[in-house]
């Protein structure tokens, strides 16, 4: 998957502030690292109706401090497993942000965009251009530093390290 050039996105689900790791993926499911399996249990504490809308969505929109709590990487990979292409939040908890980049999930901070997006809106993101398109206008977000862009474009930290190893082997 590459988010380098083409806009990604589609219908979104919108969440409140401080959505924590245990709500995104409960600890009891951490016996799996398969994104598809994890996706079945993502947001289980919020109930079936929300989960159904979540798996049909392409973008998760949230308020402050999205992903706070545990360091569990599955909080990011379960979103990928559900077909989520980008997360847009007012702010991110530190470990969630790292886990998103490191698993190849675009995590974009834009309080302005979040304020203008309603649950169910069609939202499109162009990571390289730093643009979020919503039914209520276009918003920008600060570009990633170069090294994070390299990791994200590789599809995550492990594919990035794998590529680096392969390049070293050819030297």
């Amino acid at each position, binding site marked *: 998957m590459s988010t380098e050039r083409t806009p990604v996105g589609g219908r979104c689900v919108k969440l409140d502030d*401080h959505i*924590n*790791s*245990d*709500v995104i993926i*409960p*600890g*009891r499911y*951490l*016996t799996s*690292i398969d994104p598809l399996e994890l996706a079945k249990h993502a947001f*289980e*504490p919020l109930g079936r109706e929300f989960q159904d809308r979540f798996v049909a969505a392409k973008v998760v929109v949230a308020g*402050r*401090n999205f992903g*706070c*709590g*545990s*360091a*569990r*990487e599955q909080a*990011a990979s379960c979103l990928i497993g559900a077909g989520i292409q980008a997360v847009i939040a007012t*702010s991110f*908890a*530190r*470990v969630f942000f*790292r*886990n998103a980049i*490191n*698993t190849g999930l675009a995590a974009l901070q834009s309080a302005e965009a979040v304020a203008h997006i309603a649950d169910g809106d069609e939202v499109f993101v162009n990571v390289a251009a730093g643009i979020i398109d919503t039914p209520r206008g276009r918003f920008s977000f600060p570009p990633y*530093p170069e*090294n*994070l862009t390299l*990791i994200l474009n590789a599809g*995550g*930290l*492990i594919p990035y*390290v*794998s590529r*680096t*190893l*392969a390049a070293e*082997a050819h030297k």
Partner: protein
Amino acid sequence: MSAPARTFAQKAIERASGSTGLAPGTIVEVKPDLYMSHTASWRCIKTFEKLAGAKIRHPERIAMVMDHVSPAPTAQVAGHHRLCREFARRYGVGHFFDVNEGIAHLVLMERGLIRPGEIIIGTDSHSTIYGALGAFGTGVGFSEITATWVTGVLWMMVPESMKVTLDGKLPPGVYPKDVMLKLIGDLTADGATYMSVEFEGSLTRMMSISERMTLCNLAMELGAKNAFVRPDSVAYEYLTAAGVADPSRHALLPDADARYVHELSIDAAQLAPQVACPHAVDNVRSVGDVAGVKLDQVFVGSCANAKYDDLLEVASILKGKKIAAGIRLLITPGSRDTMKRAADSGVLSTLIEAGAIITNPGCGACAGDGGAMDKGEVTLSTANRNFRGRMGSYESDIYLASPATAAASALTGVITDPREVLA
């Protein structure tokens, strides 16, 4: 002209990256001194196995601790533990601690693996606890640990820093846990996101390492990247007893005129016991506001408050008494050393006589392993998280408080101000 003043975090990242003059916000590659992975180690191993041609660069820097879900409750988890055990042997992992040892954070500190000024990354958000010994500890995902096994480096952003000055004497019934819950309630769950939190002040200097652990552990619930207490004679005595030779070798202290984005002071003498209410750690009230809430279970455990002095506090309140009818009191010592000490001193005996269930050391119910609640049930816990569903049903409630509040509440069966039983 002299170099600009720097915080602890700036100095720690400069040391580990071999660079100087790093401003907050700069991203650099650091060489962590220790890579901790707990039961999540199996995820690191599975990820490692997918990397063709990868080698482990510094096996002596790897520490694995089987603390979450241990001993194995299912065959699947037994398989995960076995994978870790065999991997550790095959690759010469420097520090492997099996299911009998306890919570990673406590074990690594007790065994002298955490040293001032060094950088420790861990697959656990509460790795901030290592600041209690003047180290830089921070939580990462499992892929990051795997990548560091292979490359020896990890990207890190130099954080902004916040200074929290704690002064005044703690009143009876008020503990470091209450100080932190008050701070989290006031600043909210993202009050220190991506920041280094430095604890200073006369009260901090008076605290034992165990108490400093509670401060630095709970700093995570402010969103902190790491926490820090300057290493002093208290820290050096602990480190020497833990067998660390030359413990000040990498020690780093913030400059007196370092820049902080936020500085605040707390007078502990003004504090009352605090309780974090469902389902967020920053939903904090004074104990008086929630006194009388009916409980089904009390849990004394976790890396926040299951150290020896925590168990001693609980035992001193329960001594010669029985817990309320219908209450389940679950006590999970933080580590094997803690449990041994509590056994030797008679603390465990006191707890058992009062009606407590003592489990093996580890994360236990805090990580959802044992001690689950049915729909509608309520637990008062000494842990650091009360997120919905963390201990069983999504329709159960978790309150967080100090070990003393937990003990007082176990006696009555409802949330109780510990000052009532300490009086």
